[in-house]
C-alpha cells in the first residue's frame, strides 16, 4: 500500500518537475515564482510588468448567474462597539461605492422603532463618486430596545432615465453573530475553491 502511494507521489513529483521545466522555458512566471528563482535573472521591467498584470483570479466554486445590480454598492459598519444596553449610543458608518464614475447619489437611512436618532444626516446627496473611492456617511443612534432592530440605508443614483440603488442593513443585537457566520461560510467556500483548483497540470 505504501509502495503504491510512493509510486503515485513519485509520478506526481516527476510530472510537476517536467511541467515546471516546460513553464520555465516558455512561459513568464508569476511574480512569486520570480522571487523564488532569484531576481538577478529577471529584467526589472519584466518584473514591473508582472506586478502590474497582477495575479490571476480564482474561479468561482460553482459558476452561477447573478442578477444585474447596478453600479452602486453600500455597506454598513459600526464604528466602535456595538450597542450593549438600552441607552447606549453607537455610530454607524455607511460606505457608498460606485463601480463607475457617478456625478451624484442620494442616501437615506431607515431607522426603526427601538432605535433613536441622535445626530447625523438621515438623507443627503453625495457627489463625484469614483470607482475604488468610497464615500462615507455617518449617523449616531441610541439603542432603545433589547430586541434586535434592523437599521437600513439606501443609496440611489441615475444615468439618464435609468435608475439604480443599493441597500445595506445593520442588526443591533445580531450583527456580530451574523458577521461571524458569514465569515465562516466564506472561509468554507474559499477552502473548497482552493481544493477544487489545486491539482491543475496547466497553471
Amino acid at each position: 500500500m505504501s509502495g503504491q502511494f510512493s509510486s503515485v507521489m513519485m509520478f506526481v513529483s516527476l510530472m510537476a518537475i517536467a511541467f515546471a521545466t516546460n513553464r520555465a522555458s516558455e512561459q513568464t512566471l508569476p511574480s512569486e515564482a520570480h522571487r523564488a528563482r532569484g531576481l538577478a535573472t529577471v529584467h526589472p521591467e519584466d518584473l514591473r510588468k508582472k506586478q502590474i498584470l497582477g495575479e490571476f483570479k480564482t474561479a468561482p466554486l460553482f459558476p452561477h448567474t447573478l442578477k444585474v445590480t447596478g453600479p452602486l454598492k453600500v455597506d454598513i459598519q459600526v464604528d466602535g462597539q456595538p450597542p450593549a444596553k438600552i441607552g447606549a449610543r453607537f455610530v454607524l458608518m455607511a460606505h457608498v461605492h460606485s463601480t463607475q464614475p457617478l456625478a451624484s447619489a442620494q442616501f437615506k437611512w431607515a431607522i426603526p422603532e427601538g432605535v433613536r436618532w441622535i445626530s447625523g444626516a438621515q438623507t443627503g446627496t453625495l457627489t463625484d463618486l469614483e470607482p475604488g473611492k468610497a464615500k462615507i456617511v455617518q449617523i449616531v443612534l441610541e439603542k432603545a430596545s433589547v430586541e434586535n432592530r434592523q437599521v437600513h440605508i439606501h443609496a440611489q443614483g441615475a444615468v439618464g432615465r435609468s435608475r439604480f440603488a443599493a441597500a445595506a442593513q445593520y442588526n443591533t443585537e445580531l450583527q456580530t453573530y451574523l458577521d461571524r457566520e458569514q465569515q465562516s461560510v466564506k472561509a468554507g467556500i474559499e477552502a473548497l475553491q482552493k481544493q477544487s483548483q489545486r491539482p491543475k497540470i496547466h497553471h
Partner: protein
Amino acid sequence: MLKSAPFMMFAILIVVGCSKKTSAPTGCTDSTGLTCPGPAEVAYCSSTTAYSNSVTITGTAQYIRREPFAGGLGNASLTGATHPAQAYPIRYAEVRVLNSAGKPIQCATTATNGTFSFQLPKSSSTFTVQVNSRAFNSKLRASVLDAPLSNKFYSLTKTVAPTANKSIGTLTATASGATLGGAFNILDQFAFANDYLRAKAGNCSAISAQCTNFTVAPKVSAYWIAGFNPYSYYGGTSGVSFYLPGYSRLFILGGINGDMGSSDTDHYDNSVVIHEYGHFLEDSMFASDSPGGFHNGNAVIDPRLAWSEGWGNFFQAAVTNWSGYGDAAYATAEYIDTIGNADGTSTVGLSVDLETPDAYDEPDFQGEGNFREFAVSRFLWDVVDTGTDAGAVDGISDEFGRIWAALTKSSLSFKDSNMKFRNVGLLHLVENEMTSNMSTWNAIRTLNMHDPDQSEYAQYVRPSGNCSYTITPANISTDDGSLDSSDLFRNNDFYHLRIATAGTYTIRLDYEDANAMGDVADLDLYVYNESAQFAVGSDILAYKTSRPTQTPTANQVESVSVTLPKGDYLINVNVFTGGILGTEAEYTLKLNGSKLCPANLVQ
C-alpha cells in the same frame, strides 16, 4: 418589523447553519448543499380518483402581488390607499386532498382562472385541501421549494367535510406575514413564460423545420424563503437572485435576515424572476457558455455573459409586455427591480429602458454592442417590438419565433454542441444561415452597434490561408494595467481554435509596428481552455508576456508550446496597458507554423 420576523430569522439561521457545515450532506460532496439532490419531493399528485356516491367540491385559489411603481414596491393590501396590490389566479397548480391520516386521496389542477373542482366520497369526515406551489402538467413544470436540503413546497390549505356538493371558497396567498403570495407569484411568472413561448414559438417549425414547436419547458426548481438571501450560501451579504447552471435550480431573493420591508427582495420583481427563468431556458432548451459572475449592467463584459444576461433582460420584457400578461405596471419595455416595499422603506433598485439606450450601457463603437448586456437586450427587443427604432420603421416586429428557432433548432444553432463560446455574434451568424436574409435585421444590428458575426469575439480560425489582424490600443479610464481590468472589446482579440488531434502544439503571435515608428503596443498571448473565464488562472493553459523591443522594424514574438487534448480553445491577444500604451500593431497567429485565419463554423 414584521410579526413573522422571529420565525423567519429562525428558519434563516437553520438554512445558513446547514450551508455552513464543513462536511457535506450524506451522499453529496458539496458542503454548501446548493448542488445536493436533497430529499425527494413529495410525489406529485396527478391521478384523478373516481368515487361512487361522491360529491363535488369546488374552490378558487389566488395570490396577492405587490406591484412596482416609480418609488419602489407597493402595498400588500388590495384596498391600500396608494399603490394597492392586485389579486391574480393561481394557475396550473397542484391540488391535493389528504385524509385525516395525511394520505392523498384525490388530485386536481387549478384552471387558468384559479378555480378547481374534484370529487370526494360523500362523508362527514374532514379532509384537507392543499393548493401547492408546484405544477407538473402540459402547461407548466415547476416547483417553488424552500431549500435544496429540504425540498418542501408551499401550500394553501383548507379543510372540508364532503357532506354535499359545496364550494370551499377562495384560498388566498397573501403578500404580507408569511408572504406565500411571493411563492405563488414566482410560480405564476414561470407560467407566463411558458404561455408566451407557446404563443410565439408554438409553431416555430414553420420558420425552420429543425425547430421543435414549443409545448412546455422541462421542470425547474426555484428555491425561495421569505426573508432569506440565497447569496448566504456563498457567504455573501448583498441581496442576490441567481441561477445554477447544470442543476435546473434557481434561487430567488426573499429578503435579508428576515426583513422584506426595507431590504432587497425579488419574489415580486417579475423582471428578475423571469430573467432567471430565462437562464434556465438557455441551460435546458438550448445552451449557454456564460461564465456568470458579477455585472453592473453598464459596462463592457465578456460577450458570453453579455449574451446570457442580455437574453434574460430581453425575455422578461418580451413576456411582461405581451398582451397575454395583463399587468399595467409592466406596460413599458423596462427591466424593473425594486428594493423593500410600502411597509418599510422602498426604492427602485434598477430601472432600465430597453427601447431607448439613454446613455445606460450604450455602446460608443461599432461592435461594442456585442460586449454590453443591455445592447444585446435592446437588439432582441427591437426584433419583437412593434414600434419604430431610430426614428424610422425598421420593418421588424413580433419575430420572436425566429430568435427561438435560431437558438433551439437541432443543428447550426445555440443548441448545437458543435458551437462554442456562444455570444450574440453566433445568433447573427445562425440567423443569417437560417433565413439567408441578414439584411432584414441589419438596421437594428447597426442601431445597437453589433457586429453581425463573431469577428470581435471567438472568431473561428483554422490553419489555412494567409491573413493578418490589427489591434489599436485604447486608453480606458477603468483600466489600471492589470489583466483583470483590461477592456475586453478595445484591448483584446479572441479566436476560437479547435484541436482535432491531441498533441503538443506551438502557438505563436508575431506582431510589428503598423506605423514603423518604434512605438508598437505591447501584445501578450494567452491560451484558454473551453470555459475561458478571463484572467482566471485555472482556465489559462499557457501564456507569454514578453516586452516588445521597440525597434521600428523588428518582428515581435510571443510563442508558447502547449499540450492540448482534442477540444476547443480560446486564443487571446491582449494589449498590456500598464506601460507605454503604444500604437496600432499588425499581427499574425500561427499553429505549428501555419497561419490561423478566419473560417466559418456555421455553414
